[in-house]
């Protein structure tokens, strides 16, 4: 078991003929993911690395039975690509695209609410269940299968933490980068619920950052609803207020959303917080051995 993705999923890559789309379609195939189709409007009939390209997601789904979409289209067209994937019946949409306007995402989020379709991202590295499948851009080789579920707002910081876990021989069940924007399809609590219900996941790691109050809500959820141990890490202690730190969502606004507040929320919820990334493996090991929380 793992959550959301496994060896059975069939992936359609939207924007497959672009630089990023073609590069990562190949990378996913090499990792063992079944990449069955690509979509670029106007380029139907082409092939990319042996993957057939269609003019629409609907055609791709009809011809190949794809059930997961992975989006690389440029930001101005990302919202449209998400609506198209939903309309074609895809159940999981992973949108990698960075720089999507918040107004577009607010509408997309509202549209998908209550529907049988999950969106991960945008502005994210994607999702991987090590040894089974990856949908996204993370380097597969740093992962190893195991009992830890990981959810993060970031990309390369997630890789850093995964590499340290793997270096300590602690494998992962599923790792999700949920994206660094103010509005993303899947949040910490959605993932924590899935980890709680997944028999293979024994502990979870949550990597948060400044901006918003998702971490505070997650801390409350962990305290109230979770039986499995969670280890947290929060970054952005040095960020000055009012400045956007790369990610559109990483901004301390009106004095709230600081790293210190988030750390305090986790500590109040009894969640161990790593001060620096290299402390994470030891805290996770303690959690797995039942000597943590």
């Amino acid at each position, binding site marked *: 078991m793992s959550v959301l993705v496994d060896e059975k999923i069939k992936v359609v890559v939207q924007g497959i003929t672009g630089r990023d789309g073609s590069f990562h379609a190949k990378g996913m195939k090499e990792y063992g993911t079944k990449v069955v189709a690509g979509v670029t409007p106007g380029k139907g009939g082409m092939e990319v690395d042996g993957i057939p390209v269609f003019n629409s997601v609907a055609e791709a789904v009809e011809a190949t039975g794809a059930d997961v979409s992975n989006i690389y289209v440029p930001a101005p067209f990302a919202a449209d690509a998400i609506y198209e994937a939903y309309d074609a019946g895809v159940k999981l949409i992973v949108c990698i695209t960075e720089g999507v306007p918040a107004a577009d995402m607010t509408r997309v989020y*509202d549209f998908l609410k209550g529907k049988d379709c999950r969106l991960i991202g945008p502005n994210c590295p994607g999702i991987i269940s090590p040894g089974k499948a990856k949908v996204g851009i993370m380097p597969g080789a740093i992962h190893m299968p195991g009992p830890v579920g990981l959810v993060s707002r*970031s990309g390369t910081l997630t890789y850093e933490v995964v590499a340290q876990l793997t270096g300590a021989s602690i494998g992962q069940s599923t790792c999700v980068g949920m994206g660094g924007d103010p509005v993303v399809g899947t949040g910490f609590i959605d993932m924590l619920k899935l980890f709680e219900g997944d028999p293979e996941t024994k502990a979870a790691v949550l990597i948060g950052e400044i901006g918003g109050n998702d971490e505070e809500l997650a801390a409350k959820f962990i305290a109230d609803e979770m039986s499995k141990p969670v280890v947290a890490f929060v970054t952005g202690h040095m960020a000055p207020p009012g400045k956007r730190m790369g990610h559109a969502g990483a901004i301390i606004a009106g004095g709230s959303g600081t790293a210190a507040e988030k750390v305090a929320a986790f500590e109040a919820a009894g969640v161990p917080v790593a001060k*620096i990334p290299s402390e994470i493996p030891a805290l996770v090991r303690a959690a797995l051995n039942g000597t943590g929380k």
Partner: protein
Amino acid sequence: MKVHEHQAKEVFASFGIPVPRERVAVSAGEAVDIADDLGYPVVLKAQVLVGGRGKAGGVKVVKDPDSAREAASAILGMEIKGLPVRKILVSEAVDIAQEIYAGVILDREKKLPVVMVSAAGGVEIEELAAKSPELIFKAHFDPMMGMLPYEARKVAFRLGLEPKTALAVGRILEQLCRVFMEADASLAEINPLVVTGDGRVIAVDAKLNVDDNALFRRKDFAKIRDEEERGTAEAMARDAGLSYVKLDGNVGCVVNGAGLAMATMDLVKHFGGEPANFLDIGGSSSPDKVIAAMQIITQDPNVRAILFNIFGGITRCDDVAQGIAAALKETGVSLPIVVRLTGTNEEAAREILAKVQGVTPAESMDGAVKQAIKLAGGSS
């Protein structure tokens, strides 16, 4: 990005929101001409992209040309929180019977836009929210439909105004919500929204922050930003496809990815150093981006050492290494450099850097950070 008050009001006015008669001046003489034209008294307001200008003396009411000239010269010579005042808004003074707060933001928790209003206008909303949250009324609205007229009226009627005034406020709220969605705003705020003695409702001050991600379709705002920031390190970084925020320390940081860049700054602090900046070179990094990053960082005279922390995924370590080698050759930077590269093509990167003088390799993130702090002159 933030835009100036006068620019925000131009946008608001184009949506039918009433604003005072006013124009922008760049010299004291021009300010007096505008004031003469509008008729006294007028308000002179410094146009700077930072709050607290009133307390800093950047807002003055004047009653005649001589005091207008004097006040305008004083304000144009000011710096407010480090920002020089280059423009003054000369605005008709309105007769204030009541001050209302009205603002629209994205509620990140509900993931819906929300309009907030209060009859206790004129103070900062954060202050009001902390002291008397019960005086703030909120209404979320559907991002597809926008705020409907009846919804706007409903929230306006909670303010306890005269019915005619409440209806006027409702119309303004409806338009403010339209501005928020159509201008791709992250904040659209009127504070104060003034009810005058004769019952008119006017936006006396305005704030508009625009979503940076939407500037591709908001060319008018992108132009404003470019003019505002011309020549700054932030603008240089943006032109090169980088994201840069200056801090006050001495360890320059070059990192790929925003989360890792923040974590690297935090780690510098954790081990007793002070980071000089946040700098994210982004995903697919060409050698050119690395050269630009080095140029931006070395413009900061406080920097004593440069730390590269690169986790190669899409970013190829050999690209970054080539960039470092080329930048050292081109710029003649003599600062010590610590490089930690791991992931895609790291072997090739090591070979490139082994031939470059002045570069200290590091294996781990912790080790690299400690080494950089040491080379910057120890903990500060």
